[in-house]
């Protein structure tokens, strides 16, 4: 009973903050609502007995990526540029079609899952340990693991190169002064 109550609260919280990411007019508020969405999803992970996923979500996603977002918003001083202005009629029609398709999808999903979960069950008491994840990362998924580290290196180099101003001008001044 308590678990159901907590899960219901987290469900509504995640849904509300996801809606407010889209609907809030101020960019900083939208970023903070996104952090709240990520934290409530991490709480659902912990409630599902997967604390590794919850911890990683909070440390990496909410704690590093969203901080980067907030730094960039601060650096660019974006302020109150924004309202979710639906000024284009074609976009509104597309949004309405998408919302309708989504409601149909939810109804079908709920109808098919209500009586019989098809053998899936979440009564997995021990959960997935970090040893199992580490083992498959190093044995079965080693190639993907090494590729993501190369990807991170490429991203760091690319971000440093992109964020430098006067890159070519500085090199030309250095050549001219020799």
């Amino acid at each position, binding site marked *: 009973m308590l678990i159901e109550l907590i899960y219901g609260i987290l469900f509504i919280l995640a849904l509300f903050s996801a809606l407010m*990411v889209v609907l809030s007019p101020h960019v900083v508020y939208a970023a903070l609502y996104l952090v709240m*969405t990520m934290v409530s999803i991490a709480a659902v992970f912990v409630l599902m007995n*997967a604390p590794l996923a919850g911890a990683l979500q909070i440390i990496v996603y909410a704690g590093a990526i969203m901080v980067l977002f907030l730094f960039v918003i601060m650096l660019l001083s974006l302020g109150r540029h924004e309202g979710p202005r639906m000024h284009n009629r074609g976009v509104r029609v597309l949004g309405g079609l998408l919302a309708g398709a989504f409601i149909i999808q939810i109804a079908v999903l709920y109808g098919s899952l209500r009586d019989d979960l098809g053998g899936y069950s*979440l009564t997995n008491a021990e959960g997935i340990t970090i040893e199992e994840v580490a083992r498959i990362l190093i044995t079965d998924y080693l190639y993907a693991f090494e590729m993501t580290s190369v990807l991170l290196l490429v991203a760091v180099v690319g971000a440093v190169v992109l964020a430098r101003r006067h890159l070519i001008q500085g090199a030309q001044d250095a050549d001219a002064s020799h």
Partner: protein
Amino acid sequence: MEFMLPGNLILAAAIFTIGVLGILLKRNAISIFMCVELMFNAANLAFITFAQSLGRPEGVAVFLFVITVAAAEAAVGLALFIKIFNDKDNIDADEMDMLKN
């Protein structure tokens, strides 16, 4: 705990659709990027739900890869936004319609 499986799938579908609607309706480029992050979170929720339900650690490994790719994409994308903002002083997705510049 049985109610969590359909509950999580419905929550993931809802957050994903809210993210797609946000991409269509927002004009600020950083807001569009934040809605992409919403979609990543919805997919992560579905991955971990099925990883727990089947008892296989592959779901958690894919979750790690999704987070890593999202971090790399955020770094490069935000550096690009800074560069565009330095030149044009305005991040409005409706006004960036020329590939040159």
